C-alpha cells in the first residue's frame, strides 16, 4: 500500500478536526516547520501559538490553555518533549487533570543525523511513570490519524510518539483503533512478537518472514498504545507459545519490554522474554536510520536472532 508522510497526516488530521471543533489548537516551540503544522496555522491562525524555543513553557502554556476548555496539541522533538518538559507535563497537565496532547517527534533512531543529543531513547520510560497518561505510538498513517482523533476526543492527557517521515500504510482507510487494543498482524504457534511504532512494527513483520523461512511461525502484535496496554492479548499469545520478543525503538529500560516483563510476572505466565531495543548502557549515536537500527540491533535480522535464541 501507499507510503504517506506521517507529519502531513498529523497536520491534515488536525486541520480536519479543527474545522469541527473550535477547541482544537496547536502549540509549537520553534519547530512548527519540522512538525509540519503550517496548514493548521494557515487555516486557524487564532488557534495557533508559537512560544519560541522554550519547551517547558510550551507544555505549561498548553496546560493553561486546556484549563479553559481548549484541546491543545503541543509538539516538539521527543527528546525535548520528554526531558525538557517533564515536570510541566507531569504536574501542570496530568496531575492537574487537564487535557493536553504532547507530541514527541523523531523518536529513537529516527532522530538519525541529529545524533546522540537528539536521540530520545527514554521518553517512553518517563511517560509510563505518569499515572493515567495514554501513550500511543502509531505504526502507519491510518493508525496515526486514528491516534490523533482519539487524543482529540479524550478528556485526559496523551503522549503521541510520532515518526515524522513517510511510512507505508498497513491498514485500510478507516480501520478502527482503540486505546489498549493491539492489532493482530500475523498468527503463529511458536512465539509472540510485540512491536511498537512504525519502525519496529515494520521490522517485526520482516523478522516474522525471516523466521517463517526457517520454519518458525510467529504471532505479531502491533501494540498501538503502550498505556493502557493490551494485557489480555499479551497474556493470551504469550501463554500459548511461552516465548516473547518485544521490539521498541527505545532503550530497553522502562519501556515496552519492561511493561511486558511486568505483565508476564504478575500474571504468572510461563514465558521467556527477549527485549529488542537499545542497550541499557547505551546513548544514541549519529548516522542513517538504517545504520542505527542495525547498530543498535533493532532491525529484522536481529529480531529474528533474538527470537531464535528463545528455542
Amino acid at each position, binding site marked *: 500500500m501507499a507510503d504517506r508522510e506521517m507529519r502531513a497526516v498529523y497536520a491534515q488530521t488536525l486541520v480536519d478536526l479543527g474545522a469541527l471543533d473550535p477547541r482544537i489548537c496547536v502549540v*509549537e516551540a*520553534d*519547530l*512548527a*516547520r*519540522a512538525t509540519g503544522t503550517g496548514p493548521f496555522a494557515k487555516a486557524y491562525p487564532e488557534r495557533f501559538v*508559537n*512560544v*519560541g*524555543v*522554550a519547551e*517547558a*513553557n510550551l507544555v505549561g502554556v498548553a496546560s493553561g490553555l486546556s484549563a479553559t476548555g481548549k484541546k491543545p496539541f503541543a509538539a516538539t522533538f521527543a*527528546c*525535548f518533549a520528554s*526531558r*525538557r518538559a517533564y515536570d510541566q507535563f507531569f504536574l501542570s497537565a496530568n496531575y492537574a487533570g487537564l487535557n493536553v496532547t504532547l507530541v514527541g517527534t523523531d523518536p529513537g533512531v529516527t532522530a538519525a*543525523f*541529529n*545524533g*546522540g*543529543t*537528539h536521540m530520545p531513547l527514554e521518553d517512553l520510560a518517563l511517560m509510563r511513570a505518569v499515572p493515567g497518561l495514554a501513550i500511543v505510538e502509531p505504526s502507519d498513517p491510518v493508525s496515526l490519524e486514528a491516534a490523533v482523533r482519539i487524543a482529540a476526543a479524550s478528556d485526559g492527557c496523551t503522549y503521541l510518539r510520532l515518526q515524522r517521515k513517510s511510512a507505508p500504510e498497513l491498514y485500510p482507510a478507516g480501520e478502527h483503533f482503540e486505546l489498549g487494543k493491539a492489532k493482530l498482524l500475523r498468527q503463529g504457534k511458536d512465539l509472540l512478537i510485540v512491536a511498537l511504532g512504525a519502525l519496529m512494527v515494520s521490522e517485526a513483520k520482516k523478522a516474522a518472514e525471516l523466521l517463517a523461512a526457517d520454519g518458525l511461525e510467529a504471532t505479531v502484535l502491533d501494540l498501538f498504545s503502550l498505556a493502557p496496554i493490551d494485557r489480555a492479548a499479551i497474556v493470551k499469545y504469550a501463554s500459548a507459545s511461552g516465548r516473547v520478543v518485544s521490539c521498541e525503538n527505545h532503550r530497553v529500560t522502562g519501556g515496552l519490554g519492561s511493561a511486558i516483563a511486568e505483565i508476564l510476572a504478575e500474571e504468572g505466565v510461563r514465558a521467556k522474554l527477549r527485549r529488542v531495543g537499545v542497550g541499557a548502557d547505551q546513548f544514541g*549515536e*549519529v*548516522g*542513517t536510520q538504517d*545504520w*542505527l537500527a542495525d*547498530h543498535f540491533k533493532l532491525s529484522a535480522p536481529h529480531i529474528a536472532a533474538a527470537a531464535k535464541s528463545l528455542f
Partner: protein
Amino acid sequence: MTANTQAKPGERLRALKGHAQDLRRAIVSMVHTAQSGHCGGSLSAADIVSALYFDIMNIDPSQPRMPGRDRFVLSKGHACPVLYGALALRGYFPVDELSTLRKNDSRLQGHPVSTYLPGVDATAGSLGLGFAQAVGMALEGRMLKAPYFVYALLGDGELNEGVVWEAASTASKFGLERLIAIVDRNNLQNDGKADDIMPMEPIDKKFEAFNWRVLAVDGHDMAAVLAALEEARKPAGKPTCIIARTIKGKGVSFMEDKREWHGKPPSDDEYGIACKDIEGGCV
C-alpha cells in the same frame, strides 16, 4: 597559547579574516558532504569563532584538557560545523575527519559531544543547556582561583529558553567576570524571524537588568570583534554579554538572511556557488 597576539595589527586582522574564510569553506563543504546540517548559524558565527580560536583564547591543541585553558561552550550546538572546523584547523584532530560530519558512527555528531572529540568543552545541542554549563565552569574557575575565561556562544532564538535567564542570574549573583557570553544576533531562528517568533528585544536592557555588562558589536567586523572581546576580558566585577549583530548565512550570497538555510544542505550546484562566494571574499 594564543595563536596570534604578537602580530602587527594589519597582519593580525588579515590572518583572522583568512581563518574565518577557511572556516566558511569548511562549513559548507562539511554540510554539503553530509547532505545534512546547519549552514546558516555556523556561517554567522565564523568571524567570532575565528577571533576566539585563532587569537583570543588561551588553548593548546596538543593538550585539549589543559587545566588552565580558556573554555568555549557552543551553547547553540547545532552550529557545530563552525566549531569542528576551528578545532580541525587548529590541529585538535585531522582536517580529513571533517568529511565524516553526521556520518555513521562519526565523532562529529550532529551536535557536539565532549566525550567524543578532543577540544569540545561541552556537550550541547539542547538549546539553553550549554549556557548553564558555562556558568558552572566559570564558577569552578573562581573557586579554584584559576584565571581562565569561559566563552559561551548563544543564538538569539536560544534566548527564548528560560534556563538562559536562570543561568544569567546565577552568573551575576557570583560576579563571574571571567564569563563572556556572545549572542549571535542574526534575527532568525527555525520557524522565522526571531523578532516575530518570540520578540526578545531589548536584549541589551535585559542583560543589563540581570546585572551584566553589555557590549554591542558588528559580528562580521573583525577589528570590532577583537576589540569587544578584549574589552570583555577587562575585570568588571560582573559577567559580560557581547551582542554580535550578524547575518545568518554570512559569506554565501544565496544563504544570507534566509530562513530556509537554517538547516538545509546545499546541492552540488549551490555548493559550487557557495565556494565562489567565499573565495571572492577571501582577499
